[in-house]
């Protein structure tokens, strides 16, 4: 039995216990439920370096709306979204927005750097790993994109290719 399964079982047990004790819920949770979404939760923090060695720390981006995108060079759907993200960065950067793209390529910068140079990204690109992916949970496929509000909370998660307008509407609503 792996560690993840134990974690799931523990979470389930804790949740069941918590729910059986009271029906207390926050206003945020109720609002999120009404909207059909999970309640906002704090985004796990990380510090990674970009291709130039600059440190990117997620928690230091509080105060901005962040589109945190997990991707890989072998992922076709991820490559559809990248030009959108470049546009979003250009359009919304001055209003307190940024994209952060985390590659999960096992080969790291050897494969990410050539693609990044080809795409001329205008937002931070870093290389992550499975450990980071597990910290974020809810990630079994790419692309997975977390929409993070100015308080550093994940307000929505998208797995797979979604319509560009979905992102635009979410960004606009959070700015």
């Amino acid at each position, binding site marked *: 039995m*792996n560690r*993840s*399964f134990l*974690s*799931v079982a523990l*979470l*389930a047990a804790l*949740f*069941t216990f*918590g*729910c*059986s004790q009271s*029906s207390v*819920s926050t206003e945020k949770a109720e609002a999120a*439920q009404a909207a059909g979404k999970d309640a906002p939760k704090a985004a796990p923090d990380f510090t990674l370096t970009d291709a130039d060695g600059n440190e990117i720390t997620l928690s230091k981006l509080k105060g901005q709306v962040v589109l945190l995108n997990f991707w*890989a*060079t*072998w*992922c*076709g*759907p*991820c*490559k*559809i979204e990248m030009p959108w993200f470049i546009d979003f960065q250009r359009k919304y950067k001055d209003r307190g927005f940024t994209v952060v793209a985390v590659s*999960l390529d*096992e080969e790291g910068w050897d494969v990410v750097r050539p*693609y990044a140079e080809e795409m001329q990204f205008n937002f931070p690109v870093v290389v992550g790993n*499975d450990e980071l*992916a*597990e910290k974020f*949970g*809810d*990630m*079994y*496929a*790419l*692309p997975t994109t977390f929409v993070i509000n100015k308080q550093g909370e994940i307000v929505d998660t998208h*797995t*797979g*290719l*979604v319509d560009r307008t979905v992102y635009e509407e979410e960004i606009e609503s959070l700015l």
Partner: protein
Amino acid sequence: MSRFCKLVLAGSLATLVLSAQFRGFQAASVAPPPPVAVKAGAETRVPVTVRVRPGYHINSSKPNEDYLIPTALTWDAAPLEVVRVEYPEAETVTYDFSPKPLSVYSGEIEIVTVLRAPAGAKPGETISGRLHYQACNNKACLAPTSVEISVPLEH
């Protein structure tokens, strides 16, 4: 327990069981190959059946985009010589994420390996290999992964 709690609990469990690990979800499986009869010096065909989950595809052995990871069946050197690996004919399919049709496998496919047994090959031995593949559906891709394969040898 409130209805909300039940819903969240059920949803959380389903999600977490499916997605507990980024590399934990397998879109393809390999049927355990039956024992293979080998004769010293002769060639033997070893079929490996791969089943791809409905809705998913894996790249063919020769994907037509450089960035795609090909399906590859490889074998450890001993105790048999690998003469060649024969991949099935690929499908050419257009997906939402690719304006260019891609070369893929879906459903059930068979990859055949032609092996030659040296004079000293012994019964009871096994040949070991692995299938490396990377799967996607129409909207998302799973991490590249490998499935270990072991084939018992008979004489």
